[in-house]
C-alpha cells in the first residue's frame, strides 16, 4: 500500500518490461552495426583508408550511401509503426497499409497528381497521395463495419481484394498513360535510387510517427474496443481519425520517395507483440527499431547476393516476410 511501484530491485519488473528493454538495447546495437555495414557495402569500393585519401569516395558516401542508409532506417521505422497503429485500431493482427488498400490508394493519388498536375512540387504530390490514402483507408474501414467479423482473417482478405480493385484502376490508368514503370516503383520499395535531395521527405514521415508516441495511450485504449474506450472517457471515432491520418501521411511520404516495403508493417508488430505485448507505450520503441533493423538487413542482403548487381528490397523482404508471416499464421492457428 504505497506509491513504491516497480522500484524494488529485483523480480518486481515484469517480463514484458524486461523483454521490451532487451529488444530496445539489442535493436539499437544491431541498428548501429547494420548502419555501418550499409555504409561500406555496395558496387563501389569504400574503405576507411580510401575515404581519407580519395575525395571521390567521400562524395560517394555523402551523396549515396549515407542518404540510402538514412532512408532505410526512416522508412523501416515508419512503415513498421503504421502497421502497429492500424493493427491496434482495427483490432486485428493481420492488417497493415498493404493489406487494406492504403498503399494502393496512395499510389492512385500520386498517379493522378502526376497526370493532372505535372508541375506539382514533391510536397504537393505527397499531400495528394496522403489524401487518397486517407480516403481509401476510411472507405475500407466503413466496408469492414458492414461485414461480419467472425474470423480474424476476414479483414485482411477483404482488404487485399479491396486493394486489388483500387490497384487495378491505377494500373488501367497507368497503362493508358504509359506510366506502368512509375506505378511499379511506388508500390514496391527500391532504395538503390536514393540520393541526397531525393529522400528527405522521409524525415517528415518519421515526424508523423513521432506523433504516434504522443498518442500512444489513446491508440492502446482504442484497441481495447469501443465500449472500453468510451467508459474511460475517450472518443473512439476521433482516435481512429487521428490514427488514419498518421498512417495515410506516412504512406504518402514513403510512396513518393522510395516505394512501400512489403510485409514490414505486418510482421514487425506481431513479432514484438509476442514478447512485449500491445501497450503501445512499451511496444513502439521496439517496433521502430526492429523495423529499421529488418529493412537494413534485407537491403544489405539484396546488395550482396548478386554483387555487384542489386536485388530490390521488395524481393528480399518479400521472401523473409512471407516466411515469417506464414509461421505467425500457423502458430496462431494452433493457439
Amino acid at each position, binding site marked *: *500500500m504505497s506509491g513504491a511501484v516497480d522500484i524494488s530491485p529485483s523480480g518486481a*519488473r*515484469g517480463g*514484458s*518490461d524486461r523483454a521490451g528493454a532487451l529488444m530496445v538495447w539489442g535493436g539499437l546495437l544491431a541498428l548501429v552495426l547494420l548502419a555501418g555495414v550499409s555504409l561500406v557495402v555496395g558496387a563501389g569500393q569504400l574503405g576507411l583508408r580510401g575515404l581519407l585519401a580519395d575525395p571521390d569516395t567521400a562524395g560517394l558516401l555523402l551523396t549515396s550511401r549515407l542518404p540510402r542508409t538514412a532512408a532505410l532506417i526512416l522508412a523501416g521505422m515508419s512503415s513498421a509503426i503504421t502497421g502497429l497503429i492500424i493493427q491496434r485500431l482495427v483490432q486485428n493482427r493481420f492488417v497493415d497499409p498493404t493489406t487494406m488498400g492504403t498503399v494502393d490508394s496512395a499510389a492512385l493519388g500520386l498517379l493522378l497528381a502526376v497526370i493532372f498536375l505535372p508541375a506539382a512540387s514533391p510536397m504537393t504530390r505527397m499531400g495528394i497521395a496522403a489524401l487518397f490514402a486517407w480516403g481509401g483507408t476510411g472507405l475500407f474501414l466503413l466496408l469492414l463495419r458492414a461485414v461480419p467479423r467472425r474470423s480474424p482473417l476476414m479483414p485482411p482478405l477483404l482488404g487485399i481484394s479491396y486493394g486489388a480493385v483500387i490497384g487495378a484502376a491505377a494500373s488501367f490508368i497507368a497503362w493508358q498513360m504509359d506510366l506502368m514503370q512509375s506505378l511499379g516503383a511506388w508500390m514496391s520499395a527500391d532504395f538503390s535510387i536514393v540520393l541526397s535531395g531525393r529522400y528527405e521527405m522521409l524525415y517528415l514521415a518519421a515526424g508523423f510517427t513521432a506523433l504516434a508516441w504522443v498518442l500512444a495511450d489513446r491508440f492502446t485504449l482504442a*484497441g481495447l474496443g469501443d465500449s472500453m474506450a*468510451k467508459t*474511460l*472517457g475517450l472518443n473512439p471515432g476521433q482516435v481512429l481519425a487521428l490514427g488514419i491520418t498518421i498512417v495515410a501521411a506516412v504512406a504518402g511520404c514513403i510512396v513518393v520517395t522510395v516505394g512501400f516495403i512489403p510485409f514490414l508493417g505486418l510482421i514487425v508488430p506481431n513479432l514484438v507483440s509476442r514478447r512485449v*505485448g500491445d501497450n503501445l507505450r512499451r511496444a513502439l520503441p521496439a517496433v521502430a527499431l526492429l523495423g529499421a533493423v529488418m529493412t537494413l538487413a534485407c537491403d544489405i542482403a539484396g546488395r550482396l547476393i548478386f554483387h555487384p548487381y542489386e536485388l530490390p528490397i521488395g524481393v528480399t523482404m518479400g521472401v523473409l516476410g512471407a516466411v515469417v508471416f506464414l509461421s505467425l499464421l500457423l502458430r496462431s492457428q494452433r493457439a
Partner: protein
Amino acid sequence: MIRVENLGKTYAGDWVVDVEALELPRGGLTAIIGPNGAGKSTLLSMISRLQAPDRGHVTLDGQDILRIKGDVLARQLTVLRQDNAMTARLTVADLVAFGRYPYSKGRLTEADRAEIERALALVDIVPYRHRFLDELSGGQRQRAFIAMVLAQDTEYALFDEPLNSLDIRHAVSVMHLLRRAAEDLGKTVVTVLHDLNFAARHADRIIAMKNGRLQVVGRPDEVIRPAILRDLYGLDLDVTERQGKPLVDVFG
C-alpha cells in the same frame, strides 16, 4: 442520483427496455435480477451511455447524461460489461493503470500509482500483475477487470454479472468488495446478478425486471418472495430465511 425517465430501446419492433421511471439514489448496493432477455444489460448500457436509447433519457445529478463530456463522465460513472473479449495483449498492471486514464491521461502520478496498487490488492491479484491477460484463467481475468473499475474510483460503478466465471471463494470476495465499496467508501454500486442468493444477501435494494419492464423494486425481503419469483422465472421456488435475509432454494 441517477434518474431514468421514460427510457426505451427497441429491436425489430419489440421494446427490449421499457422503463417509465427509475431512481438510483446515491450510495448503497442495488442488484438487478430477472430472466435472460429481461433487458438488464441493455438498461445498464443505456445508463452508462454505451448504447443510445430510442426514447427517453437518463440524468446524472440532474444533468442529461448525453450532454456530459466524455472524460468528465468517466470520472463519475463507469461500467464493467459482460463480454470483455479483446485482442490486445496487455498485462494486468497495464490494464488496471488504464483505469486511471480519465485522471492522468497516461501520465501516472504517485496518487494514481497508489490507487492502482490498492485496486490490485483489493481483488487479490498482485502476484499476477505482470502476466498478460491472455495468460490468465477466466476468473483471474475477471478480477483484473474489476480492479480496473475500482482504480477508476467513480461515484457510480455499474457491473454486468461481475461474478461470471468466478469460483465460490472469489465470488464471495467480489461481493464483499462491492459491499465495502458501497458501505465504507460511500460509492453507488449497481450490479446485474444472476445468483438470487447473492442479491438477497448483499443488496440494499433489488430491481426485478422482465420483458424490458420493471416488475418490482424494493428491499430484498420485499422482492425475494415465492409469488414474485414465480412471476419472474415461471418456477416455484422455496424461500426461507437465513441471517435475517431471504434464502432461495434455487435447485427446483
